[in-house]
């Protein structure tokens, strides 16, 4: 862990806002079905930006990456939830539309998942809040993992310490 390291909040905000916006806009949000690609990507981006300004270290700052990723996940959850609620209320993009869109992509939903989506209650604020909370938990978990991955891949290795040089021989006095 590095002391005097760069600010964690700014990269977390950038990564979190990017992932939050992407995961709340309906067609793009389907990318989260690919192993949470957007959540992982948000954490990865945050850690990548954070380590861009961090000094080289002997070992990869995985813990710092996890913290930045988790912060980005929290921002993703807040932004994603808020924008999702606004979109749902403004355009009425509820579960029926989501199911239609997923089936349009060729996905055949299990009846239970379909029922659960439909029972989640359309575009009511309560249902949207519940969805946002569940998505928020996933966002924090996967964004933290993305941050750890970003720290591993962006890590700048410090050069090994130079071997101690032999002191110069004492001057000889002749004559």
């Amino acid at each position, binding site marked *: *862990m590095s002391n005097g390291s760069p600010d964690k909040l700014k990269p977390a905000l950038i990564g979190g806002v990017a992932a939050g916006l992407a995961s709340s806009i309906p067609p793009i949000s389907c990318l*989260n*079905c*690919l*192993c*949470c690609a957007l959540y992982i990507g948000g954490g990865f981006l945050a850690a990548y930006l954070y380590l861009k300004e961090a000094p080289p270290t002997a*070992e*990869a*700052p*995985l*813990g*710092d*990456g*996890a*913290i930045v990723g988790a912060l980005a996940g929290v921002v993703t959850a807040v932004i994603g939830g808020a924008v999702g609620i606004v979109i749902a209320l403004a355009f009425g993009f509820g579960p029926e539309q989501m199911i239609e869109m*997923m089936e349009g992509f*060729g*996905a*055949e*939903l*299990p009846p*239970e*998942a379909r*029922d*659960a*989506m439909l*029972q*989640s209650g359309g575009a009511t604020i309560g249902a949207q809040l519940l*969805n946002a909370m*569940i*998505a928020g938990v*996933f966002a924090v978990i*996967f964004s933290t*993992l993305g941050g*750890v*991955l970003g*720290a*591993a*891949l962006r*890590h700048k290795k410090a050069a090994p310490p130079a071997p101690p040089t032999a002191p110069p021989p004492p001057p000889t006095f002749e004559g």
Partner: protein
Amino acid sequence: MTLRRNGPYWLLTAGCFLWLAAVFFAAYARGQGLGGFGVLYGCFGSVCHQIPERSFSAFGAVLPVCHRCLGLYTGFTVGLLVFPYLHRWRAWLLGNPRWVLLFIAPMFVDVFLLPNTYLTRYLTGFSAAFPVALLAWGAAAQLFDQPHIFPRGEHDEQRVTR
């Protein structure tokens, strides 16, 4: 970096087992006709496409996650359980963490380039998550070494040295 099988490690491992248990319990509950499994299917539905043709079945029901997601979850869990015994490999991978890309690359090849099967989907997912478990353990170890984040407990003597 010194890795210990201490509180955070066991917490991480327990979380992984709970996660896997939730996957299989959802299928069990659905197969047995118990109530409440729809919620679990709905939760996993937010992170997986749940296409039945691309998912394993257990207990007479389709699992709530696809082949690749199940591979990712089991790979991560197995990684956490196995890495404490792979001393050399662990030291090498923590020293050169960019090599995790070597394990993740097959999944991208499988997704975008090859006509995949259930076996390739599961195995490439497993391979991608396996080394990430070590990185997550390393992150937990680094966080645990910061006393202001996690106060050090007295029961962390079970030590795994590199």
